[in-house]
């Protein structure tokens, strides 16, 4: 019986070798694929073992991880709830991560290469590796004023520091409570998520672009002034009705009003009262090239950018003929801007024609609070000369002083601005816009206010929000 026994012994050896080979195949060859399979929740669960870094505004944590009993060691919380939801996003077991939680995940989770040396140190000292903190540029007073102003509306407010590009406010309504999406109870997370509308999960300031209406006239004015052939005082045609070239369509002013009894007015007045016929004709006179290149210089070039949240690209759309050019010149047709882009237009004018790249993260710090990286202000483009900027400031100041933007006036502070009331879809209310900056002679803040289907003019409902946001910021700057 020994011969078959030996053969059985060898067969057993072969069987076990097969087992070992197969285990090698799984744990070595296929290991990476299995480890990173989206259905493999182990890596995600591992993230919850580390203390995730905080997101900080003005010294206060707006997103933080607190230890909890249970299998997942840390719970993500957002003490201010809805106020910063569009900025922080959420950190969810079920729906992954969004916004800053996603964009700054490497640093927050501690896997960022900039933290490598500290992680090595943790390895030797036996401390649990923790993530770094992200400190934002936001101003809590600005954010609060913006959210309060937008209450009950679908809309957005973007506030920038024109001289640096710091984002002072980034508000979007309606909002949601990210804490509820970041709990450890998948059923509760799903139930809450199912109740949220698309508008709640959209950051209106950066995710979507909308018809800007008359706000775009600032860009056309800039294109005109940049030619050197126009000054704020240049008289331009401002008929009651304009028949668009090559069509039988006539363009009218808002509510069919007349811009000027003489059919002519200064460029400044045309912007002040937001004369549609004047700007349509002006755009046609300038030609598509001048309008388009000025728009692109302001950043309206269909390109997304990161700040580090993704900002959708703004666009001029295609312009096939002079009729379309005329309509585009008053911010209709296919022209679409994000509220962020609208704020950037105001900021560029405010900053003597230099557009600073907007940024949300002031600095990132290691768990021991040492600064790991700091964002340096960076010029994105210089769409206009400082002379043109000066002229535009004069014109926009007139808009607020005695034009369509009166409701943005602040006692003792000169505010520059431009309103916009944009037709979008038939049967839908107009979008209501306001962009502006203050103080006009020495700008500290530039804002854009957008209310989706606001149903009223930008001057009526958006300008007051801009006013309260500017006031909130200037009050914090020691009154001005």
């Amino acid at each position: 019986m020994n011969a078959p026994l030996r053969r059985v012994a060898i067969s057993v050896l072969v069987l076990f070798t097969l087992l070992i080979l197969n285990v090698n195949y799984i744990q070595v060859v296929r290991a990476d694929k299995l480890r990173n399979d989206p259905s493999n929740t182990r890596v995600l669960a591992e993230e919850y073992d580390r203390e995730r870094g905080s997101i900080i505004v003005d010294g206060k944590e707006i997103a933080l991880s607190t230890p909890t009993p249970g299998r997942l060691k840390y719970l993500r919380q957002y003490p201010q709830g809805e106020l910063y939801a569009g900025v922080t996003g959420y950190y969810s077991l079920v729906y992954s991560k969004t916004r800053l939680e996603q964009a700054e995940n490497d640093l927050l989770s501690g896997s960022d290469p900039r933290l490598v040396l500290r992680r090595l140190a943790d390895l030797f000292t036996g401390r649990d590796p923790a993530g770094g903190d992200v400190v934002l540029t936001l101003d809590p007073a600005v954010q609060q004023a913006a959210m309060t102003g937008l209450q009950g509306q679908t809309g957005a407010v973007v506030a920038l520091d024109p001289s640096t590009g710091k984002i002072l406010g980034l508000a979007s309504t309606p909002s949601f409570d990210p804490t509820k999406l970041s709990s450890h109870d998948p059923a509760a997370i799903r139930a809450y998520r199912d109740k949220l509308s698309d508008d709640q999960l959209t950051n209106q300031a950066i995710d979507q672009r909308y018809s800007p209406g008359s706000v775009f006239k600032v860009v056309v004015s800039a294109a005109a002034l940049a030619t050197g052939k126009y000054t704020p005082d240049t008289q331009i045609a401002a008929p009651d009705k304009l028949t668009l070239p090559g069509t039988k369509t006539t363009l009218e002013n808002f509510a069919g009003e007349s811009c000027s009894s003489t059919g002519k007015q200064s460029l400044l007045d045309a912007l002040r009262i937001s004369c549609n016929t004047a700007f349509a004709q002006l755009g046609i006179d300038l030609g598509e090239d001048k309008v388009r290149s000025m728009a692109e210089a302001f950043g309206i070039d269909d390109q997304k950018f990161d700040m580090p949240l993704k900002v959708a690209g703004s666009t001029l759309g295609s312009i096939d003929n002079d009729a379309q050019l005329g309509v585009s010149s008053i911010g209709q047709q296919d022209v679409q801007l994000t509220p962020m882009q609208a704020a950037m237009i105001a900021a560029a004018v405010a900053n003597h024609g230099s557009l600073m790249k907007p940024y949300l993260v002031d600095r990132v710090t290691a768990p021991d609070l040492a600064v790991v990286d700091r964002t340096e202000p960076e010029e994105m483009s210089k769409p206009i000369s400082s002379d043109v900027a000066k002229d535009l400031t004069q014109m926009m100041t007139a808009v607020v002083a005695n034009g369509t933007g009166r409701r943005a006036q602040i006692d003792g502070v000169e505010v520059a601005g431009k309103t916009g009331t944009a037709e979008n879809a038939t049967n839908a209310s107009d979008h209501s816009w306001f962009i502006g900056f203050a103080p006009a002679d020495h700008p500290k803040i530039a804002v854009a206010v957008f209310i989706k289907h606001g149903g009223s003019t930008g001057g009526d409902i958006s300008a007051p929000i801009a006013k309260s946001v500017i006031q909130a910021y200037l009050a914090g700057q020691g009154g001005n």
Partner: protein
Amino acid sequence: MAGPITDPRTPVAGADVPKRRGTEALLLGFAVLITVVAQCIVDLTITGSLRPEMAGFCVWITALWVAAHLAIRRWAAYADPLLLPSVALLVGLGLTVIHRLDLASEQVDATATREDAPVQLIWATLGVALFVAFLVVVRDHRTLSRYAYTLALIGMALLAIPALLPSSLSSVNGAKIWIRLAGFSIQPGEFAKICLVIFFAAYLVDKRDVLALASRRVAGMELPRGRDLGPVLLAWVLSILVLVFERDLGSSLLLFGIFVVMLYIATERSSWLLIGVVLFAGGAYIAYNVFAHVQARVDTWLDPFAYKNGAGYQLTQSLFGLGTGGLFGAGLGGGRPDQVPVAKSDFIASAVGEELGLFGLVAVIVIYLILVERGLRTSLVARDAFGKLLAAGLAFAVAWQVFVVLGGVTGLLPLTGLTTPFLAYGGSSLVANFVLVAILVRISDAARRPATPHVAPQRLGDAPTEVVTQ
């Protein structure tokens, strides 16, 4: 240190065979050390401090192996020195992983107080007690052959009971392989396996001349006569019955495999293997086409990720665990082996692979290999045909079971419901396997013990075919 002086098998003077008990003691100490260190690592990693029962556990586990070792010294002094330490290491590792999974469920639900590790320790204690009792009571393994037919009957009955019981008393997760009474669950198949192997050994030793010699030559191969196919067909039918009535693919495959291999060893006729394979293929083909649950098993095996939220959930989670573990593993207490359903029993190997990595899992496979090969070696040197065949059958049973289970958990084979010997949670399996090892120890003691005048020296291939009774 040998048996009592009246033992007729007392070694004759001059035949100085090393007993190797010191080696065994050393290896056992090593196994205990690994167990205790692993237990400490689990506690420290998960809870940050040692549990209060740790000291008690250390004493208990040490006492277990000391008792088993002393029993071998006293009643089986010449036994193979690697059998018990292999078992000790596997049991210790199993206890550790089960304890680790207990802690995991407490982490998920702080109110969960059900702890399986202490229960498993009690089963291990019972197993060692039976191990010692066996060595004390059965001084000569050949005694077992006297009860071959009784054991066959018991084995069949144990196999049949769950099939006959109402599902409420016998079915867990679809497989009707349990006897559940008064809070206890027994898996009689594990005991049936041993009973049937003993019977196979006795029966085949008895009939091997007929089965081996009477043959016809067909196509260059010695084929048995039609009427001699009876026993193998019976074993095949029995396996199919198990599959049909208990939906237990594993036991079915295990029993048939063991029988065919033992038949081959007994008769030295490879034609039996061929017949076995043909019968297996036929059975498998029929089973696949007739039984939906077999079909489901095979489909999930072929593409587990297509069923990852359903039937393939267990297997994909197991593969995720193994993949995440990688070469070195997450470390004891560092992984998420509790994400695999029933990780404590059927899928304990994936928990080992996730936390101890490829190295840990291969180490476990190699320990099994050592256990099996020592069993087969015992068979090689055994002096009597019954002992030879019995040792081979038992060793192969362990090998085949480990192959089928680990192959299932790692996706090499379709999943079956077999338990991982010594490692997995489950009283029946643990206790039964202790008895299995006790038999191997007993046979190896007889095999390595220097020959006495009572047993004439014999050539290995020429062992007596008749069973010595009385």
